[in-house]
Protein backbone atom coordinates (compact mmCIF):
# COMPACT_ATOMS: atom_id res chain seq x y z
CA UNK A 1 0.00 0.00 0.00
CA UNK A 2 2.75 2.38 1.04
CA UNK A 3 4.95 1.60 -1.94
CA UNK A 4 1.98 2.02 -4.21
CA UNK A 5 1.31 5.50 -2.91
CA UNK A 6 4.95 6.38 -3.20
CA UNK A 7 5.04 5.28 -6.79
CA UNK A 8 1.99 7.25 -7.62
CA UNK A 9 3.59 10.28 -6.04
CA UNK A 10 6.73 9.83 -8.00
CA UNK A 11 4.89 9.69 -11.28
CA UNK A 12 2.53 12.45 -10.20
CA UNK A 13 5.13 14.95 -9.09
CA UNK A 14 7.54 14.78 -12.02
CA UNK A 15 5.61 17.05 -14.35
CA UNK A 16 4.72 19.82 -11.87
CA UNK A 17 8.25 19.85 -10.46
CA UNK A 18 9.72 20.01 -13.95
CA UNK A 19 7.40 22.91 -14.68
CA UNK A 20 8.72 24.70 -11.61
CA UNK A 21 12.28 24.10 -12.70
CA UNK A 22 11.62 25.06 -16.33
CA UNK A 23 12.20 28.85 -16.26
CA UNK A 24 15.53 28.49 -14.47
CA UNK A 25 16.59 25.64 -16.74
CA UNK A 26 15.72 27.56 -19.88
CA UNK A 27 17.62 30.57 -18.59
CA UNK A 28 20.65 28.46 -17.77
CA UNK A 29 20.47 26.78 -21.16
CA UNK A 30 20.52 30.12 -22.96
CA UNK A 31 22.83 32.08 -20.69
CA UNK A 32 25.38 29.36 -19.97
CA UNK A 33 25.06 26.36 -22.25
CA UNK A 34 24.57 27.90 -25.68
CA UNK A 35 27.78 29.95 -25.23
CA UNK A 36 29.56 26.73 -24.26
CA UNK A 37 28.62 25.26 -27.62
CA UNK A 38 29.65 28.56 -29.16
CA UNK A 39 33.31 27.90 -28.47
CA UNK A 40 33.62 26.67 -32.05
CA UNK A 41 33.74 30.35 -32.99
CA UNK A 42 37.40 30.37 -31.93
CA UNK A 43 38.13 27.95 -34.76
CA UNK A 44 36.46 30.04 -37.44
CA UNK A 45 37.10 33.25 -39.22
CA UNK A 46 33.83 34.98 -38.51
CA UNK A 47 32.34 36.89 -41.38
CA UNK A 48 28.93 38.26 -40.50
CA UNK A 49 28.02 38.42 -44.17
CA UNK A 50 28.34 34.67 -44.43
CA UNK A 51 26.80 34.12 -41.03
CA UNK A 52 28.38 32.50 -38.00
CA UNK A 53 27.73 28.92 -39.03
CA UNK A 54 28.80 29.36 -42.65
CA UNK A 55 31.99 31.27 -41.88
CA UNK A 56 35.17 29.43 -42.87
CA UNK A 57 36.85 26.99 -40.51
CA UNK A 58 40.44 27.99 -39.92
CA UNK A 59 41.59 25.39 -37.41
CA UNK A 60 44.01 26.74 -34.84
CA UNK A 61 44.93 29.81 -36.87
CA UNK A 62 43.44 32.24 -34.34
CA UNK A 63 45.43 30.61 -31.56
CA UNK A 64 48.63 30.63 -33.59
CA UNK A 65 48.20 34.35 -34.21
CA UNK A 66 47.35 35.01 -30.59
CA UNK A 67 50.35 33.22 -29.16
CA UNK A 68 52.65 34.83 -31.64
CA UNK A 69 51.82 38.24 -30.18
CA UNK A 70 53.49 39.71 -27.16
CA UNK A 71 50.02 40.28 -25.67
CA UNK A 72 49.52 36.60 -24.98
CA UNK A 73 52.58 36.48 -22.79
CA UNK A 74 51.85 39.78 -21.02
CA UNK A 75 48.23 38.99 -20.19
CA UNK A 76 49.04 35.49 -18.97
CA UNK A 77 51.95 36.70 -16.86
CA UNK A 78 49.91 39.55 -15.36
CA UNK A 79 46.90 37.36 -14.62
CA UNK A 80 49.02 34.74 -12.88
CA UNK A 81 51.25 37.11 -10.91
CA UNK A 82 48.37 39.29 -9.70
CA UNK A 83 46.45 36.23 -8.61
CA UNK A 84 49.47 34.88 -6.80
CA UNK A 85 49.96 38.14 -4.92
CA UNK A 86 46.22 38.40 -4.18
CA UNK A 87 46.04 34.84 -2.85
CA UNK A 88 49.08 35.04 -0.59
CA UNK A 89 48.61 38.57 0.74
CA UNK A 90 44.81 38.30 0.77
CA UNK A 91 44.89 35.14 2.87
CA UNK A 92 47.30 36.74 5.34
CA UNK A 93 45.19 39.90 5.67
CA UNK A 94 41.91 38.01 6.05
CA UNK A 95 43.39 35.70 8.66
CA UNK A 96 44.87 38.62 10.55
CA UNK A 97 41.53 40.42 10.58
CA UNK A 98 39.69 37.25 11.57
CA UNK A 99 42.01 36.56 14.52
CA UNK A 100 41.66 40.12 15.75
CA UNK A 101 37.89 40.08 15.23
CA UNK A 102 37.49 36.95 17.31
CA UNK A 103 39.04 38.81 20.24
CA UNK A 104 36.28 41.41 20.19
CA UNK A 105 33.62 40.07 22.51
CA UNK A 106 31.41 43.14 22.54
CA UNK A 107 28.66 42.43 20.01
CA UNK A 108 28.06 46.04 19.09
CA UNK A 109 31.74 46.73 18.58
CA UNK A 110 32.28 43.66 16.45
CA UNK A 111 29.27 44.55 14.34
CA UNK A 112 30.62 48.03 13.68
CA UNK A 113 34.10 46.71 12.89
CA UNK A 114 32.74 44.11 10.56
CA UNK A 115 30.46 46.56 8.79
CA UNK A 116 33.34 48.97 8.24
CA UNK A 117 35.62 46.28 6.89
CA UNK A 118 33.02 44.71 4.59
CA UNK A 119 31.76 47.99 3.16
CA UNK A 120 34.50 48.37 0.51
CA UNK A 121 33.38 45.04 -0.93
CA UNK A 122 29.86 46.28 -1.51
CA UNK A 123 30.57 49.17 -3.82
CA UNK A 124 31.01 48.97 -7.56
CA UNK A 125 34.36 49.07 -9.29
CA UNK A 126 33.22 52.32 -10.88
CA UNK A 127 33.06 53.99 -7.48
CA UNK A 128 36.37 52.35 -6.58
CA UNK A 129 37.86 53.90 -9.70
CA UNK A 130 36.54 57.28 -8.52
CA UNK A 131 38.18 56.79 -5.16
CA UNK A 132 41.49 55.79 -6.72
CA UNK A 133 41.21 58.77 -9.05
CA UNK A 134 40.66 61.07 -6.07
CA UNK A 135 43.96 59.86 -4.62
CA UNK A 136 46.01 59.59 -7.78
CA UNK A 137 44.97 62.05 -10.45
CA UNK A 138 47.84 64.23 -11.56
CA UNK A 139 46.41 67.74 -11.12
CA UNK A 140 44.32 67.61 -7.98
CA UNK A 141 44.92 64.14 -6.54
CA UNK A 142 45.25 63.76 -2.80
CA UNK A 143 48.65 62.05 -2.93
CA UNK A 144 50.25 64.52 -5.28
CA UNK A 145 48.90 67.72 -3.76
CA UNK A 146 48.41 66.88 -0.11
CA UNK A 147 51.26 64.45 0.51
CA UNK A 148 54.05 64.73 -2.05
CA UNK A 149 53.93 68.50 -2.52
CA UNK A 150 54.13 69.47 1.18
CA UNK A 151 57.02 67.04 1.54
CA UNK A 152 58.79 68.76 -1.30
CA UNK A 153 58.74 65.62 -3.44
CA UNK A 154 58.16 65.57 -7.15
CA UNK A 155 54.63 64.93 -8.29
CA UNK A 156 53.93 61.68 -10.06
CA UNK A 157 51.71 61.18 -13.08
CA UNK A 158 50.25 57.94 -11.83
CA UNK A 159 48.10 57.12 -14.82
CA UNK A 160 51.03 56.97 -17.22
CA UNK A 161 53.58 55.07 -15.15
CA UNK A 162 52.93 51.33 -15.44
CA UNK A 163 55.62 50.33 -12.92
CA UNK A 164 53.56 51.52 -9.96
CA UNK A 165 50.32 49.76 -10.79
CA UNK A 166 51.06 46.29 -9.46
CA UNK A 167 51.28 47.87 -6.00
CA UNK A 168 48.28 50.11 -6.49
CA UNK A 169 46.03 47.34 -7.76
CA UNK A 170 47.15 44.92 -5.07
CA UNK A 171 46.45 47.53 -2.42
CA UNK A 172 43.02 48.25 -3.90
CA UNK A 173 42.24 44.55 -4.05
CA UNK A 174 43.26 44.02 -0.43
CA UNK A 175 41.29 47.07 0.68
CA UNK A 176 38.20 45.82 -1.14
CA UNK A 177 38.22 42.12 -0.29
CA UNK A 178 40.11 41.45 2.96
CA UNK A 179 37.24 42.26 5.29
CA UNK A 180 34.74 40.28 3.25
CA UNK A 181 36.99 37.25 2.94
CA UNK A 182 37.64 37.25 6.68
CA UNK A 183 33.96 36.38 7.31
CA UNK A 184 34.58 32.75 6.62
CA UNK A 185 37.57 32.52 8.93
CA UNK A 186 35.71 34.35 11.68
CA UNK A 187 32.93 31.76 11.42
CA UNK A 188 35.41 28.91 11.70
CA UNK A 189 37.24 30.43 14.66
CA UNK A 190 33.88 30.91 16.40
CA UNK A 191 33.32 27.19 15.92
CA UNK A 192 36.48 26.17 17.76
CA UNK A 193 35.82 24.54 21.12
CA UNK A 194 36.58 27.11 23.84
CA UNK A 195 37.68 24.32 26.15
CA UNK A 196 40.85 23.85 24.13
CA UNK A 197 41.95 27.41 24.90
CA UNK A 198 40.94 26.92 28.52
CA UNK A 199 43.22 23.94 29.00
CA UNK A 200 46.02 25.66 27.07
CA UNK A 201 45.70 28.56 29.48
CA UNK A 202 45.94 26.22 32.46
CA UNK A 203 49.08 24.74 30.90
CA UNK A 204 50.50 28.24 30.80
CA UNK A 205 50.23 29.07 27.10
CA UNK A 206 50.21 32.79 26.36
CA UNK A 207 48.04 34.40 23.71
CA UNK A 208 50.62 34.18 20.94
CA UNK A 209 51.17 30.55 21.65
CA UNK A 210 47.42 29.93 21.58
CA UNK A 211 47.14 31.59 18.17
CA UNK A 212 50.07 29.77 16.62
CA UNK A 213 49.54 26.41 18.32
CA UNK A 214 45.74 26.21 18.40
CA UNK A 215 43.90 28.66 16.17
CA UNK A 216 46.06 28.50 13.06
CA UNK A 217 46.59 24.72 13.10
CA UNK A 218 42.85 24.19 13.50
CA UNK A 219 42.19 26.59 10.62
CA UNK A 220 44.74 24.85 8.42
CA UNK A 221 42.25 22.66 6.53
CA UNK A 222 40.03 25.67 5.74
CA UNK A 223 43.02 27.74 4.68
CA UNK A 224 44.22 24.96 2.38
CA UNK A 225 40.78 24.53 0.85
CA UNK A 226 40.34 28.25 0.25
CA UNK A 227 43.84 28.38 -1.18
CA UNK A 228 43.23 25.53 -3.60
CA UNK A 229 39.89 26.91 -4.71
CA UNK A 230 41.60 30.24 -5.39
CA UNK A 231 44.31 28.43 -7.35
CA UNK A 232 41.53 26.93 -9.46
CA UNK A 233 40.52 30.46 -10.43
CA UNK A 234 44.04 31.69 -11.05
CA UNK A 235 43.35 32.21 -14.75
CA UNK A 236 40.48 34.57 -14.05
CA UNK A 237 40.69 38.19 -13.08
CA UNK A 238 38.33 40.87 -11.90
CA UNK A 239 37.59 42.76 -15.12
CA UNK A 240 36.54 45.91 -13.27
CA UNK A 241 39.72 46.09 -11.22
CA UNK A 242 41.98 45.86 -14.25
CA UNK A 243 39.89 47.86 -16.70
CA UNK A 244 38.02 50.54 -14.79
CA UNK A 245 40.42 51.29 -11.94
CA UNK A 246 43.38 52.14 -14.27
CA UNK A 247 40.84 54.15 -16.33
CA UNK A 248 41.49 51.99 -19.38
CA UNK A 249 44.75 53.88 -19.76
CA UNK A 250 46.74 52.60 -22.73
CA UNK A 251 50.03 53.60 -21.16
CA UNK A 252 49.44 51.09 -18.37
CA UNK A 253 48.61 48.00 -20.45
CA UNK A 254 51.99 46.39 -19.79
CA UNK A 255 51.11 45.93 -16.12
CA UNK A 256 47.31 46.06 -16.15
CA UNK A 257 46.37 43.88 -19.10
CA UNK A 258 44.87 40.57 -17.98
CA UNK A 259 43.14 37.90 -20.02
CA UNK A 260 39.74 39.38 -19.20
CA UNK A 261 40.65 42.89 -20.30
CA UNK A 262 42.31 41.53 -23.43
CA UNK A 263 39.17 39.62 -24.40
CA UNK A 264 37.12 42.77 -23.96
CA UNK A 265 39.50 45.02 -25.86
CA UNK A 266 40.00 42.61 -28.74
CA UNK A 267 36.25 42.15 -29.11
CA UNK A 268 34.88 45.64 -28.50
CA UNK A 269 37.73 47.99 -29.36
CA UNK A 270 39.66 46.13 -32.07
CA UNK A 271 36.69 44.19 -33.44
CA UNK A 272 38.92 41.17 -33.66
CA UNK A 273 36.58 38.28 -32.99
CA UNK A 274 39.21 35.68 -33.81
CA UNK A 275 41.77 36.84 -31.26
CA UNK A 276 39.18 37.59 -28.63
CA UNK A 277 37.46 34.23 -28.86
CA UNK A 278 40.79 32.42 -28.95
CA UNK A 279 41.89 34.21 -25.76
CA UNK A 280 38.51 33.51 -24.17
CA UNK A 281 38.65 29.80 -24.95
CA UNK A 282 42.26 29.62 -23.77
CA UNK A 283 41.08 31.06 -20.45
CA UNK A 284 38.05 28.75 -20.16
CA UNK A 285 39.92 25.56 -20.95
CA UNK A 286 42.95 26.22 -18.75
CA UNK A 287 40.61 27.47 -16.02
CA UNK A 288 38.53 24.30 -16.27
CA UNK A 289 41.62 22.10 -16.00
CA UNK A 290 42.85 24.11 -13.01
CA UNK A 291 39.53 23.72 -11.19
CA UNK A 292 39.55 19.97 -11.84
CA UNK A 293 43.13 19.74 -10.65
CA UNK A 294 42.52 21.82 -7.54
CA UNK A 295 39.46 19.75 -6.69
CA UNK A 296 41.38 16.52 -7.10
CA UNK A 297 43.93 17.79 -4.59
CA UNK A 298 41.22 19.04 -2.21
CA UNK A 299 39.67 15.59 -2.31
CA UNK A 300 42.97 14.05 -1.30
CA UNK A 301 43.46 16.55 1.55
CA UNK A 302 39.93 16.57 2.86
CA UNK A 303 37.27 14.61 0.94
CA UNK A 304 34.45 16.40 2.81
CA UNK A 305 35.39 19.77 1.38
CA UNK A 306 35.79 18.70 -2.25
CA UNK A 307 33.45 20.42 -4.67
CA UNK A 308 32.62 17.16 -6.41
Amino acid at each position, binding site marked *: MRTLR*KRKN*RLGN*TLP*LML*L*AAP*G*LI*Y*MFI*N*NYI*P*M*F*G*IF*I*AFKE*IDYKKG*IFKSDWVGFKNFRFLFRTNDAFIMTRNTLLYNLAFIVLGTCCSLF*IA*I*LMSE*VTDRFCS*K*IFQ*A*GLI*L*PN*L*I*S*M*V*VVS*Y*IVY*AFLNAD*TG*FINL*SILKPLGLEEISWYSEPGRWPFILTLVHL*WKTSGYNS*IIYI*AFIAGIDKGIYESA*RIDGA*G*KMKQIFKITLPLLKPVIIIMFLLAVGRIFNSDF*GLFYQVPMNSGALYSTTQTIDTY*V*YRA*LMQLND*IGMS*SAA*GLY*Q*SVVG*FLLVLGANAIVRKVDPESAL*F
Partner: protein
Amino acid sequence: MQKINSETAFKIFSVITLTILVIFAFLPFVLIFVTSFTDEVFLIKHGYSFFPKKLSLNSYKYLFNNYYTILRAYGVSVFVTAVGTGAGILITTMLAYPMARKDFKYRNILAFVAFFTLLFNGGIVPSYIMWTRVFSINNTYAALIIPNFLMNAFNVLLVRNYYANNVPGEVIESAKIDGAGEMRIFFRIMLPMSVPVVATVGLFTGLAYWNDWINALYYISSPKYYGIQNLLIRLMNNIQFLKSSQAATMLAGREVELPSTGIRMALAVLGILPIIILYPFLQKYLIRGVVMGAVKG
Protein backbone atom coordinates in the same frame (compact mmCIF):
# COMPACT_ATOMS: atom_id res chain seq x y z
CA MET B 1 49.07 36.77 36.35
CA GLN B 2 51.46 36.97 33.43
CA LYS B 3 49.11 34.89 31.26
CA ILE B 4 46.06 36.98 31.92
CA ASN B 5 48.09 40.03 31.08
CA SER B 6 49.16 38.69 27.71
CA GLU B 7 45.49 38.02 26.89
CA THR B 8 44.29 41.40 27.99
CA ALA B 9 47.13 43.03 26.11
CA PHE B 10 46.17 41.16 22.94
CA LYS B 11 42.54 42.19 23.36
CA ILE B 12 43.54 45.82 23.57
CA PHE B 13 45.89 45.40 20.63
CA SER B 14 43.04 43.84 18.62
CA VAL B 15 40.61 46.64 19.30
CA ILE B 16 43.16 49.33 18.50
CA THR B 17 44.37 47.64 15.30
CA LEU B 18 40.84 47.00 14.11
CA THR B 19 39.89 50.59 14.78
CA ILE B 20 42.81 51.70 12.63
CA LEU B 21 41.89 49.23 9.89
CA VAL B 22 38.26 50.33 9.89
CA ILE B 23 39.38 53.94 9.62
CA PHE B 24 41.56 53.01 6.64
CA ALA B 25 38.71 51.11 5.06
CA PHE B 26 36.40 54.04 5.57
CA LEU B 27 38.65 57.04 4.86
CA PRO B 28 38.36 56.86 1.07
CA PHE B 29 34.59 57.24 1.42
CA VAL B 30 35.11 60.26 3.64
CA LEU B 31 37.39 61.81 1.02
CA ILE B 32 34.73 61.38 -1.67
CA PHE B 33 32.07 62.74 0.64
CA VAL B 34 34.06 65.78 1.76
CA THR B 35 35.15 66.55 -1.79
CA SER B 36 31.57 66.61 -2.97
CA PHE B 37 31.08 69.53 -0.55
CA THR B 38 34.34 71.30 -1.38
CA ASP B 39 34.47 74.61 -3.19
CA GLU B 40 35.74 74.10 -6.73
CA VAL B 41 38.25 76.96 -6.70
CA PHE B 42 39.77 75.59 -3.51
CA LEU B 43 39.82 72.12 -5.08
CA ILE B 44 41.72 73.18 -8.14
CA LYS B 45 44.27 75.02 -6.07
CA HIS B 46 44.79 72.61 -3.21
CA GLY B 47 43.46 69.35 -4.55
CA TYR B 48 41.33 66.79 -2.75
CA SER B 49 41.49 67.33 0.96
CA PHE B 50 39.97 65.87 4.09
CA PHE B 51 39.78 69.34 5.64
CA PRO B 52 38.88 71.84 2.93
CA LYS B 53 38.94 75.46 4.04
CA LYS B 54 36.01 76.37 1.87
CA LEU B 55 32.83 74.36 1.59
CA SER B 56 30.16 74.70 -1.02
CA LEU B 57 26.91 73.13 -2.05
CA ASN B 58 27.46 73.95 -5.71
CA SER B 59 28.02 70.39 -6.83
CA TYR B 60 24.70 69.27 -5.40
CA LYS B 61 22.98 72.37 -6.68
CA TYR B 62 24.34 71.55 -10.08
CA LEU B 63 23.14 67.98 -9.92
CA PHE B 64 19.79 69.23 -8.70
CA ASN B 65 19.54 71.53 -11.69
CA ASN B 66 20.29 68.60 -13.92
CA TYR B 67 17.83 66.44 -12.11
CA TYR B 68 16.48 64.90 -15.28
CA THR B 69 19.70 63.06 -16.21
CA ILE B 70 20.35 62.01 -12.62
CA LEU B 71 16.82 60.92 -11.83
CA ARG B 72 16.59 59.01 -15.07
CA ALA B 73 19.80 57.10 -14.32
CA TYR B 74 18.65 56.47 -10.77
CA GLY B 75 15.33 55.28 -12.12
CA VAL B 76 17.02 52.90 -14.55
CA SER B 77 19.19 51.48 -11.75
CA VAL B 78 16.26 51.05 -9.37
CA PHE B 79 14.08 49.50 -12.06
CA VAL B 80 16.76 47.08 -13.25
CA THR B 81 17.69 46.11 -9.70
CA ALA B 82 14.08 45.59 -8.63
CA VAL B 83 12.96 43.60 -11.67
CA GLY B 84 16.19 41.61 -11.91
CA THR B 85 16.24 40.74 -8.23
CA GLY B 86 12.54 39.84 -8.10
CA ALA B 87 12.64 37.66 -11.20
CA GLY B 88 15.98 36.21 -10.16
CA ILE B 89 14.74 35.13 -6.73
CA LEU B 90 11.69 33.54 -8.30
CA ILE B 91 13.45 31.41 -10.89
CA THR B 92 16.29 30.58 -8.50
CA THR B 93 14.00 29.20 -5.80
CA MET B 94 11.75 27.48 -8.36
CA LEU B 95 14.74 25.63 -9.74
CA ALA B 96 16.25 24.91 -6.33
CA TYR B 97 13.12 23.38 -4.83
CA PRO B 98 12.81 20.32 -7.10
CA MET B 99 16.53 19.67 -6.57
CA ALA B 100 15.90 19.47 -2.83
CA ARG B 101 13.01 17.02 -3.17
CA LYS B 102 14.29 13.55 -2.36
CA ASP B 103 11.44 11.91 -4.24
CA PHE B 104 12.12 13.79 -7.47
CA LYS B 105 13.65 11.60 -10.13
CA TYR B 106 15.78 14.16 -11.92
CA ARG B 107 17.09 16.05 -8.91
CA ASN B 108 20.69 14.91 -9.38
CA ILE B 109 20.68 15.66 -13.07
CA LEU B 110 19.36 19.16 -12.39
CA ALA B 111 21.99 19.74 -9.73
CA PHE B 112 24.71 18.65 -12.09
CA VAL B 113 23.42 20.85 -14.90
CA ALA B 114 23.56 23.82 -12.55
CA PHE B 115 26.88 22.87 -11.00
CA PHE B 116 28.65 22.41 -14.32
CA THR B 117 28.13 26.08 -15.17
CA LEU B 118 30.40 26.91 -12.22
CA LEU B 119 33.20 24.84 -13.72
CA PHE B 120 33.16 25.74 -17.37
CA ASN B 121 31.96 28.64 -19.45
CA GLY B 122 32.04 29.43 -23.11
CA GLY B 123 33.63 32.82 -22.65
CA ILE B 124 32.38 36.24 -23.55
CA VAL B 125 32.57 36.13 -27.34
CA PRO B 126 29.95 33.42 -27.90
CA SER B 127 27.59 35.06 -25.36
CA TYR B 128 28.12 38.44 -26.92
CA ILE B 129 27.37 37.15 -30.41
CA MET B 130 24.34 35.24 -29.15
CA TRP B 131 22.81 38.16 -27.26
CA THR B 132 23.46 40.69 -30.00
CA ARG B 133 22.91 38.62 -33.17
CA VAL B 134 20.31 36.07 -32.11
CA PHE B 135 18.35 37.96 -29.48
CA SER B 136 19.11 41.51 -30.71
CA ILE B 137 19.31 42.68 -27.15
CA ASN B 138 21.31 45.88 -27.80
CA ASN B 139 19.88 49.03 -26.31
CA THR B 140 16.98 47.49 -24.45
CA TYR B 141 16.31 47.19 -20.74
CA ALA B 142 16.53 43.44 -21.22
CA ALA B 143 20.25 43.88 -21.95
CA LEU B 144 20.70 45.25 -18.45
CA ILE B 145 18.63 42.55 -16.76
CA ILE B 146 18.99 39.25 -18.58
CA PRO B 147 22.65 38.48 -19.39
CA ASN B 148 24.71 37.01 -16.52
CA PHE B 149 22.93 38.22 -13.41
CA LEU B 150 19.40 36.83 -13.39
CA MET B 151 20.38 33.52 -11.89
CA ASN B 152 23.59 31.76 -11.01
CA ALA B 153 24.32 28.23 -9.94
CA PHE B 154 25.94 29.30 -6.70
CA ASN B 155 22.66 30.82 -5.48
CA VAL B 156 20.62 27.89 -6.76
CA LEU B 157 22.74 25.42 -4.80
CA LEU B 158 22.61 27.68 -1.75
CA VAL B 159 18.81 27.62 -1.78
CA ARG B 160 18.72 23.90 -2.52
CA ASN B 161 20.85 23.21 0.53
CA TYR B 162 18.62 25.42 2.62
CA TYR B 163 15.50 23.55 1.55
CA ALA B 164 17.16 20.18 1.99
CA ASN B 165 18.43 20.94 5.49
CA ASN B 166 15.83 23.25 6.99
CA VAL B 167 12.47 22.12 5.69
CA PRO B 168 11.35 18.76 7.10
CA GLY B 169 9.92 16.31 4.61
CA GLU B 170 6.86 15.87 6.84
CA VAL B 171 5.74 19.37 6.01
CA ILE B 172 5.51 18.45 2.34
CA GLU B 173 3.95 15.06 3.14
CA SER B 174 1.20 16.54 5.27
CA ALA B 175 0.45 19.24 2.72
CA LYS B 176 0.07 16.53 0.11
CA ILE B 177 -2.28 14.56 2.31
CA ASP B 178 -4.35 17.71 2.60
CA GLY B 179 -4.54 17.62 -1.18
CA ALA B 180 -2.22 20.50 -2.08
CA GLY B 181 -0.60 20.32 -5.52
CA GLU B 182 3.12 20.79 -6.10
CA MET B 183 2.73 24.37 -7.28
CA ARG B 184 0.66 25.23 -4.27
CA ILE B 185 3.15 23.59 -1.93
CA PHE B 186 5.94 25.60 -3.42
CA PHE B 187 4.27 28.99 -3.49
CA ARG B 188 2.24 28.72 -0.29
CA ILE B 189 4.57 26.72 1.95
CA MET B 190 8.13 26.56 0.68
CA LEU B 191 8.56 30.14 -0.45
CA PRO B 192 7.27 31.65 2.81
CA MET B 193 9.45 29.24 4.79
CA SER B 194 12.58 30.33 2.97
CA VAL B 195 12.62 34.01 3.91
CA PRO B 196 16.17 33.96 5.37
CA VAL B 197 17.78 32.35 2.33
CA VAL B 198 15.68 34.45 -0.03
CA ALA B 199 16.94 37.55 1.78
CA THR B 200 20.52 36.38 1.30
CA VAL B 201 20.08 35.54 -2.38
CA GLY B 202 18.16 38.76 -2.90
CA LEU B 203 20.96 40.73 -1.30
CA PHE B 204 23.65 39.14 -3.46
CA THR B 205 21.57 39.58 -6.60
CA GLY B 206 20.48 43.11 -5.77
CA LEU B 207 24.03 44.23 -5.10
CA ALA B 208 25.20 42.65 -8.35
CA TYR B 209 22.54 44.55 -10.31
CA TRP B 210 23.03 47.87 -8.55
CA ASN B 211 26.79 47.72 -9.04
CA ASP B 212 26.77 46.37 -12.57
CA TRP B 213 28.12 48.44 -15.41
CA ILE B 214 29.56 45.66 -17.57
CA ASN B 215 26.33 44.61 -19.27
CA ALA B 216 25.87 48.19 -20.40
CA LEU B 217 29.48 48.33 -21.52
CA TYR B 218 28.78 45.48 -23.93
CA TYR B 219 25.18 45.96 -24.91
CA ILE B 220 24.21 49.61 -24.45
CA SER B 221 25.30 52.54 -26.57
CA SER B 222 22.37 54.90 -25.97
CA PRO B 223 22.69 56.99 -22.76
CA LYS B 224 18.94 56.61 -22.38
CA TYR B 225 19.59 53.22 -20.79
CA TYR B 226 22.42 54.28 -18.52
CA GLY B 227 22.02 53.46 -14.86
CA ILE B 228 23.87 55.31 -12.16
CA GLN B 229 27.12 53.34 -12.61
CA ASN B 230 27.34 53.95 -16.32
CA LEU B 231 26.46 57.59 -15.83
CA LEU B 232 29.43 57.75 -13.47
CA ILE B 233 31.72 56.23 -16.09
CA ARG B 234 30.44 58.64 -18.67
CA LEU B 235 30.89 61.56 -16.32
CA MET B 236 34.45 60.54 -15.56
CA ASN B 237 35.31 60.49 -19.24
CA ASN B 238 33.43 63.58 -20.16
CA ILE B 239 32.04 66.10 -17.72
CA GLN B 240 30.62 68.08 -20.63
CA PHE B 241 27.98 65.42 -20.94
CA LEU B 242 25.98 67.05 -18.14
CA LYS B 243 26.81 70.52 -19.32
CA SER B 244 25.17 69.97 -22.65
CA SER B 245 21.75 69.54 -21.16
CA GLN B 246 19.45 72.50 -21.05
CA ALA B 247 19.42 73.25 -17.35
CA ALA B 248 23.18 73.26 -17.37
CA THR B 249 23.48 75.99 -19.96
CA MET B 250 21.18 78.11 -17.83
CA LEU B 251 23.42 77.60 -14.84
CA ALA B 252 26.59 78.01 -16.83
CA GLY B 253 25.68 81.63 -17.36
CA ARG B 254 25.97 82.22 -13.63
CA GLU B 255 28.85 79.97 -12.76
CA VAL B 256 32.33 80.86 -13.80
CA GLU B 257 33.67 77.41 -13.28
CA LEU B 258 31.86 74.15 -13.80
CA PRO B 259 32.51 72.30 -10.55
CA SER B 260 33.57 69.21 -12.45
CA THR B 261 35.40 67.32 -9.70
CA GLY B 262 32.80 68.15 -7.11
CA ILE B 263 29.98 67.02 -9.40
CA ARG B 264 31.69 63.72 -10.05
CA MET B 265 32.17 63.06 -6.37
CA ALA B 266 28.63 64.17 -5.55
CA LEU B 267 27.29 61.66 -8.04
CA ALA B 268 29.54 58.97 -6.61
CA VAL B 269 28.06 59.74 -3.19
CA LEU B 270 24.57 59.32 -4.65
CA GLY B 271 25.69 56.01 -6.15
CA ILE B 272 26.80 54.47 -2.85
CA LEU B 273 24.18 56.12 -0.65
CA PRO B 274 21.54 53.40 -1.01
CA ILE B 275 24.08 50.73 -0.11
CA ILE B 276 25.30 52.58 2.97
CA ILE B 277 21.74 53.25 4.12
CA LEU B 278 20.45 49.71 3.58
CA TYR B 279 23.53 47.77 4.57
CA PRO B 280 23.21 47.87 8.39
CA PHE B 281 19.87 46.10 8.08
CA LEU B 282 21.20 43.49 5.68
CA GLN B 283 24.59 42.64 7.16
CA LYS B 284 23.42 39.52 8.95
CA TYR B 285 21.96 38.04 5.75
CA LEU B 286 25.19 38.73 3.92
CA ILE B 287 27.33 37.08 6.56
CA ARG B 288 24.95 34.15 6.82
CA GLY B 289 25.08 33.74 3.05
CA VAL B 290 28.86 33.72 2.90
CA VAL B 291 29.07 31.17 5.68
CA MET B 292 26.31 29.00 4.19
CA GLY B 293 28.03 29.09 0.83
CA ALA B 294 31.29 27.86 2.30
CA VAL B 295 29.81 25.14 4.48
CA LYS B 296 28.14 23.24 1.72
CA GLY B 297 25.49 20.69 2.57
